[in-house]
């Protein structure tokens, strides 16, 4: 096959440079794909799809009849990230998570950042993610956000921006691992030539983080708490529990007694020390949060406050997911770390500020407007794709509750070649790397590349027609010879040694 008729469409393409030639990091892959007989790529795509259905790697779609499972579409052309670029992303993410953790801790204690006038108090007090029940809490080892998935995008200018933070229960990492497993079987020869950093140790690192949080002096029992088989991410919960070798529990399996959490086993009750919970704050403990929750464990927060169980992530981290709080992150980093932000935010208009609000209402057709506390692509307006009536309707919503909205310029998300009807075509992508905060901060070299499969679409969410790709982060060494794309002989020798 050849790439002659591949159209860059005026966007930044992750695989091809402006001259239409493969970027240095993508050359081994491009060469391999070019050498395949016609139709072979499509065959491999079919093989990948079939493998996913058979293995039942599925997610549930809300709003469709119960028990409906779908496979998450997978596209076999990976996104490739060169080593130097990744080094910067990694540094930027570590900086961001460190600052956000300090920010959350401050909010639930002295609120110095508010007293110093950096973040307005009403932004925090009106945030849905701020939990008064968490004021004064001291999570084990002062870590709140143990597991984060930060969404990154690249604009037409080639710059990588942070689009949003996910500090509650970010999902998707199981697809990173499964996609990689598939890709290794589909393109073994490219893996040999490209020096791609592995992701398979994620469950081990995750378990290390979880065990690190247990009270001293015990061999901790770690469990993963799932809302149950009807949750959209149930496959992931079950997969991670299996890969980590920990028990997968539902709320009804746990019970609080005498200041500890216990799980019901066929042989009596056994104590639980660390809970990786994939249940939202709201549903964790009906005695403290929503009283109608059937998913949580009555009394859990009491045990947590007493330090007799660790919750991962800590309750209350959602405040940093708030899309208005997001707009303050550059200032938050400056305030706590006295550093400039490494990975910039997307320029953001805060509707709660009158000047910004006026601009937003006048420029709705050019902007993307997001509700502060929604995720999954819900509650947002994409100006350039919306009708006049939709814009007007949304304007009313914004005026009614300006605090709840932010707006950003419409980004021209970068694209990656993607298998479509009629061959490869560019489709827009974002990237969600996963960050673990335990003894140190670890950024998984890879991440979930989400792709908007519909032509021209910018919405990458799985619930709305998005798919995924494997993400290849290349190792520092060996270095590519820019001229011919071959490995330098010395480095090959080094790699062998």
């Amino acid at each position: 096959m050849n790439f002659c008729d591949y159209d860059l469409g005026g966007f930044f393409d992750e695989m091809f440079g402006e001259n239409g030639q493969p970027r240095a990091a993508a050359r081994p892959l491009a060469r391999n794909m070019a050498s395949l007989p016609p139709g072979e790529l499509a065959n491999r795509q079919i093989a990948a799809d079939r493998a996913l259905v058979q293995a039942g790697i599925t997610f549930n779609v809300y709003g469709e009849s119960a028990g409906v499972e779908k496979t998450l579409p997978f596209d076999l052309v990976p996104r490739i990230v060169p080593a130097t670029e990744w080094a910067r992303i990694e540094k930027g993410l570590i900086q961001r998570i460190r600052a956000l953790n300090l920010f959350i801790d401050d909010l639930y204690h002295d609120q110095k950042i508010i007293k110093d006038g950096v973040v307005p108090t009403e932004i925090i007090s009106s945030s849905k993610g701020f939990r008064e029940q968490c004021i004064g809490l001291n999570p084990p080892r002062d870590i709140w956000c143990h597991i984060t998935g930060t969404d990154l995008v690249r604009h037409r200018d080639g710059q990588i921006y942070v689009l949003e933070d996910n500090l509650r229960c970010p999902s998707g990492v199981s697809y990173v691992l499964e996609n990689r497993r598939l890709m290794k079987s589909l393109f073994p020869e490219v893996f040999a030539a490209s020096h791609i950093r592995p992701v398979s140790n994620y469950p081990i690192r995750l378990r290390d983080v979880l065990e690190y949080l247990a009270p001293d002096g015990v061999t901790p029992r770690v469990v993963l708490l799932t809302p149950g088989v009807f949750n959209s991410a149930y496959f992931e919960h079950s997969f991670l529990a299996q890969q980590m070798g920990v028990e997968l529990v539902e709320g009804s399996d746990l019970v609080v007694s005498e200041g500890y959490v216990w799980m019901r086993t066929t042989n009596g009750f056994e104590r639980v020390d660390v809970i990786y919970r994939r249940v939202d704050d709201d549903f964790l403990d009906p005695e403290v949060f929503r009283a109608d929750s059937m998913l949580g464990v009555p009394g859990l927060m009491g045990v947590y406050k007493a330090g007799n169980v660790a919750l991962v992530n800590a309750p209350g981290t959602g405040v940093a997911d708030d899309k208005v709080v997001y707009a303050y992150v550059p200032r938050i980093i400056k305030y706590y770390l006295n550093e400039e932000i490494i990975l910039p935010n997307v320029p953001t208009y805060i509707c709660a500020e009158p000047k910004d609000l006026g601009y937003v209402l006048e420029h709705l057709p050019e902007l993307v407007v997001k509700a502060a506390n929604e995720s999954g692509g819900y509650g947002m307006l994409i100006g350039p794709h919306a009708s006049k009536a939709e814009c007007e309707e949304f304007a009313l919503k914004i005026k009614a509750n300006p605090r709840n909205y932010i707006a950003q310029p419409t980004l021209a998300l970068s694209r990656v070649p993607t298998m479509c009807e009629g061959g490869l075509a560019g489709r827009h992508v974002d990237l969600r790397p996963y960050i673990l905060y335990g003894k140190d901060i670890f950024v998984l070299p890879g991440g979930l590349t989400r792709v908007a499969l519909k032509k021209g679409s910018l919405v990458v969410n799985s619930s709305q027609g998005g798919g995924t790709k494997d993400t290849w982060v290349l190792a520092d060494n060996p270095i590519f010879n820019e001229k011919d794309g071959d490995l330098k002989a010395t480095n090959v020798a080094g790699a062998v040694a």
Partner: protein
Amino acid sequence: MLSRVADSIYWMSRYVERAENVARFVDVNLNLMLDSPSGADQQWEPLVNITGDHETFEKLYAKAATQQNVIQFLTFDRDNPNSILSCLRAARENARSVREIISSEMWLQLNTFYLMVNSAASSGKGFESPHEFFSEVKLASHLFSGITDATMTHGEGWHFGRLGRLLERADKTSRILDVKYFILLRSVADVGTPLDEVQWVAVLRSASAFEMYRKRHGRIVPKAIVEFLLLDSEFPRAIRFCLNAARDSLHAISGTPLGTYRKPAEKLFGQICSDLAYANVDDVMNQGLHEYLDALQTKMNSASTGIYERFFAKRMPETKNTAKERVQ
């Protein structure tokens, strides 16, 4: 092991076994019809009795049992919780909730099994080539239990699965025996006729017991058939065999030595198994087979309840340090 997980594995196996048994009954009855003189008793109603779902059937169909509606009811009816399709849906849901515990091969097979029955339900295959369809169901079930035995650690979870499977099997064999015996001996005129023999062979076939019976007893004699299906200790679908194995699994789970008991479930199993070990088919017949089987069913139900209460029921920890500390 979590109580919920044990419960799910138990029911997963039980539902797969139930689906297999329903496929057996229907298939054998279809064959039997082919051997019946035209217009002879259309024996479809007893089939509904065997599964114990007479009330559901009457509520859903409100008319006489025919081949068509009984097969629909027992095979594809989503409103009948014990139809093959419903059983597999339930088995799969249970498996899905313990996917990280069972082997991925087991999940794959159960998923494929369910998809096969589901597509037969919508394509009408069960009616077009019933024999092929029911054979596939039986085979898929055998494959599932074979994969289970070959890929899952024979630890606590596996024993719960075996417990579920064998209790279900014992229950179904006892129902076949009860219903068929009642019908066959009702028409005294038929005793000893070729038709009678054909019917008894059908009983054996529905438990896949015909060939093994021949090796053990040779001639087709009702009393020997009862003895074989009820009291044989080596034939894997005989009630005694099933209950002995279920008892062994129960003791493997609880760690209580065989021959002793700590909880009501173990006591009940011990009693049932000794009773079957020392029973004599003549005594059973004198007492009345129906009465004997009825009492046995009651005891098996109590034993199931005992298992539920011992392992699955949601209890709260007893206070003051009686909750078991985790072993370090």
